[in-house]
Every structure is written in C-alpha cells, then in structure tokens.
C-alpha cells in the first residue's frame, strides 16, 4: 500500500523548464533514490510528489489515486528535510505529534505511535527537550521520527544526511536502511551523493537536466550504464573517458573505470607518467598522464608505491571497457 506513479510530469518556473517529462513507477516497499548533480531537478521532483510544488503538467498517482490536486497533508506522505525543519517552539514529543494532532488522531493513539517511534530511534530520553537542546544527529532522528509517527504510504527524504558530519552520516545512513527493512515502507530519497544512492537503494533513478537518464538497481547502473553521463556519475573515483580517435577506435569515447585498469612498470597499453598518488591505505589512487589517453585515474587495491614522475604502463581490462557513440549512448 505505497505505490507511486509519475506520469509525464513537467515543471517550469517561468521560461525555465526544470522537469522535462518524467515517467516513473515505484512499487510498494521499494527504496528509490533520486540522484544527480545539483540543478538536475531531483529536489523539485520530490517536491512535486509531496505536493509542495504544483507540476505544470502530468499526473502524480499515489496508491492508484490521482493526487495532483491534493494538498500535501492529505497525500499520506511524510517528509524529512535536509535542515531538519523541526518546530523550534515545540518539544520533541510535540514535534512528532503535531501532524497527527492536526488530523484529529486520539491522544492515546498519538502517544502509542510516539512511543514506538522514539524507542525505534532511541529518542526516549529527549522527548521533553526542545530542538535547540539537541545535537545535529539527534535532530535528524527526531525529524525521521516525526515522519515515522505518521505511518505514511510514502516516506520522502530530501538530502537528509547533507548537514551531518562524516561519521554521523554513516550511522544515520545505517539507521535509515534498518528503518526501511523494519517498516517495509516505500521510501523515496534524494541525494547528490552516489555513495548514499548505491548503499541504500533498491532502485536508483539518475537524473540530469530535468530528464531521467537511467533507472535501475545499483549494480545494474554500475555494470551496464546506459550512457556516458550515468557511467561518469556512478562510481568513485569517476570513470576515465578517453577520446576514441586517439586510441584508433571507431567509438567516439572509450570509458574505463579506475578499478578496471592495471599498472606495470615495464609494459602495457598506455604509457604514462605519475602526476600524483593518493594513498588511502585500503587502496591507492594514481593519476597518470598518458601519451595516448591523456590524464587518467587508476585505482589499485592495497598499497602501491609510486613516486610522481615515475613511468608506468596502464592496461584496461577489455571485458570492462565501455564504448560510447557520438550521442553519448553505449555502443553494444
């Protein structure tokens, strides 16, 4: 009971078209992540689903019901915002209960649901505090609790981890993943961080300039990207793109992921000099300036000693090399 259909949704602010016809189907219980660079329209799409923005044309259908003209509070959704957006004048308990109170839910029921949500998110000691007395991580947990309490058909997350520091981000990410497993609710999550997308999603929707570039599971996007944009966006460090003509290939662009390149000091396909080496412990990122391929990144697992200025040969794994046509699409 939490399916979502988006049918040809377009959104324009004046002459600027932000969404250029989005079609998407989300089945019950799915964790869908919208990912894309800033300005790609992912947040706008989420706002259209929430009803905070009206679409210029197209339909939003939640659970088989066209909600295009329904106010946000009546859509059966709950949203978690990047800036937490807690009510500063209310205690944690009242923050979580306000939506239910507005919907005339009996007080006993509100208390029961707050009890469940706060134990799930270990918020019990803070119920009587105000948001100002909480840390960033606690505030975001309250915001998540406020969404859980409403038992919505659809959870919407708008970059919920962006304001947290790195360590908290990993913890909260874990909590969201557990929450999804426990509630089995449909969740839609917006982020610009492809790591969050890969780790959380059942299904990733890659957006660029108001269009959907590709929809698929994390591994599907990683292993068979539909085009150059998706190939470049998913995976870190970013895929290397080499001009096909320089390699004597027929394809416009050749793409190789940094982890699908091997290096050898004596022989290989592309000769280059080390520009810079990043030692991360578990792996090493080498930046090579190659005669044929230009500046490329190579990711080597484990420790690899390479001084800047040294000569190395890089060889791509032919089975994991992508070929892109002039239109950016993958050539089969």
């Amino acid at each position, binding site marked *: 009971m939490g399916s979502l259909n988006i049918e040809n949704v377009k959104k324009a*602010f004046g002459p600027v078209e932000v969404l250029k016809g989005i079609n998407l189907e989300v089945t019950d219980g799915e964790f869908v992540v919208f990912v894309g660079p800033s300005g790609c329209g992912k947040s706008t799409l989420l*706002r259209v689903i*929430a*009803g*905070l923005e009206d679409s210029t044309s197209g339909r939003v259908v939640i659970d088989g019901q066209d909600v295009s003209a329904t*106010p*946000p*509070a*009546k859509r059966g*959704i*709950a*949203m978690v*915002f*990047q*800036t*937490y*957006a*807690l*009510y*500063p*004048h209310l205690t944690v308990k009242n923050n979580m209960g*306000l*939506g239910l109170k*507005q*919907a005339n839910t009996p007080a006993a029921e509100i208390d029961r649901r707050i009890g469940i949500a706060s134990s799930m998110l270990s918020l019990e000691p803070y119920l009587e505090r105000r948001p100002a007395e909480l840390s960033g991580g606690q505030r975001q947990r309250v915001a998540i609790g*406020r969404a859980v309490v409403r038992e919505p058909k659809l959870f919407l997350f*708008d970059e919920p981890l962006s304001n947290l520091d790195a360590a908290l981000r990993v913890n909260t990410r874990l909590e969201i993943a557990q929450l999804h497993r426990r509630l089995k609710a449909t969740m839609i999550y917006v982020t610009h961080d492809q790591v969050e997308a890969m780790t959380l999603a059942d299904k990733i929707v890659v957006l660029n300039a108001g269009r959907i570039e590709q929809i698929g599971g994390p591994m599907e996007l990683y292993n068979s990207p539909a085009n150059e944009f998706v190939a470049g966006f998913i995976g870190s460090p970013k895929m290397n793109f080499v001009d096909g003509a320089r390699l004597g290939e027929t394809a416009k662009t050749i793409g190789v992921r940094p982890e699908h390149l091997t290096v050898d000091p004596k022989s290989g396909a592309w000769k280059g000099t080390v520009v810079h080496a990043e030692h991360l412990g578990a792996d090493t990122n080498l930046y090579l300036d190659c005669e044929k391929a230009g500046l490329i990144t190579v990711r080597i697992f484990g420790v690899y000693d390479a001084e800047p200025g040294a000569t190395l040969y890089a060889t791509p794994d032919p089975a994991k090399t992508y070929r892109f046509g002039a239109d950016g699409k993958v050539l089969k």
Partner: protein
Amino acid sequence: MSTATRSLPRTIGAHAILLTYTAIALFPVILVIMNSFKSRAGIFGAPLTPPTPGTFDLIGYTTVIGQGDFIHYFQNSLVVTVASLFFVLLFGAMAAFALSEYRFRGNSLMGLYLALGIMIPIRLGTVAILQLMVASGLVNTLTALILVYTAQGLPLAIFILSEFMKQVSDDLKNAGRIDGLSEYTIFFRLVLPLVRPSMATVAVFTMIPIWNDLWFPLILAPSEETKTVTLGAQLFLGQFVTNWNAILAALSLAIMPVLILYVIFSRQLIRGITSGAVK
C-alpha cells in the same frame, strides 16, 4: 587576559570617542529634564546647572498636571501609537509574508509599489487625506490618526520584514504544510516567532515618529477630546510668552512612555539590527 587583540591606547581612544558621542547625544535630553525641575528664574539664570535647593521648583509639573487635560492627552497618544503599531506590524508582516513566500504574477511589482511610500512622504497628501477624512466624518477622531499612521508605517515595515521573511527556512514552512498546518498557522506560529527581532526593529522605527508627530494631530484631530501630547504641549507655547517650565515638564513626561516601549523592544532590537551582519 589575552592581550593579542587589545592595546591600552586603542581601548582608551575608542572609549573616549564613544563617551564624547554619548555626552553629545544625551546633552539636550538631560538639559530638558534638568531644567524642568527648576523655577523660571533658575532656567534663565543658569540653564546649564542642575537644580539647586534655591532653584528647585515643581511649578512646571504642577502647571502641566493642573492646566489642560494632560493625562487625557497621554492616553490619546498612547492609544494612537499602540494601535498604529499593532496594525503596522500585523499588516506589514502579513504583506511581507505574502511577498516573500508566494510566487504570483506581479510579485516584484507589488513589492515595489508597497515600498514606494518610503520614498514619497505621506505629508504630500495631507490635503487629500483631510478631504477624505472630512468626507468620511473621521475628523477629530483617533481613528483618523491611526489610519494615517498605519499607512505611513507600512512601507518601511513591509520592506524590512520581507527581507527577513525570506531568510526563514523553506523547509520549516514545508514541514508545517505536510503536517497539515494552515497558512495562517504557519505564519503566526512558525514564521512570526522567528522574525521577532526584526519586528522589534520595525516597531521602534515606526513608534518614534508617530509619538513625536505634530502635523497630523494638528490637522486631523485638534479637538480637546483627541489632542495628543505633542499637540497639548503647544498650549504653553505662545507667540509672545512661552511657559518654559510647563513645556519642559511636558516634554520630560512625554519621553517616559517611549522610553518604556523602547526598553521593552530593545533587547530584541539589537539582535534584529545585527542578525544580518554576523550570521
């Protein structure tokens, strides 16, 4: 104490400048209050000395309280100021919210139109306002003054408040919408408390000209019933003989209510003025 950021000569210099300025700013006020407690001969004999047992005299205050209905004038001033302030803040904040929150055709044009009053003094329209008040039978009522002062205060209020309203987090308002709060609840419960410092700033800027105004009370409501304090004080200002004791006493008394309102707002005010700069 750390001395990295302090040096004694600089501290002394800064304080000297500030103290000089404070003295200059306070001098006329102190002069007025000092002389209001002196006899007529004392005022003219030695205007710069504080009241001594020889010159101390409450004649000014007794005249003010005895002659004319000063308590009543005070009431009028207070009613007009507080009511105008209330309407300016209420309507100003609502208009500012609409301008900053909703996208509609002609939004920026409307903003410009509402801010136009900052550049055009309302007194230019005095004749038309008087005709309007005569036609609607509002001459010699406090309502006339409240209406005019509300109109006078709104442009600046809208201009300042809409800037501050733009800074209120969109996420917070959207969270309210998702929780089913009405736009009015969002405005009164979520947004207004967050812009309280700027409301205090606007309140002070609006209040002082209204309290001190002589022009409109003189033209629109000069009757005994509706006189304000500033107009009442004119009673003692003659063409040939001026009752300085009474005028100084009346002015000293007139400072009090503004001072009280200012103290109420000032704690918020400082935050309002500096919030844009440091955050």
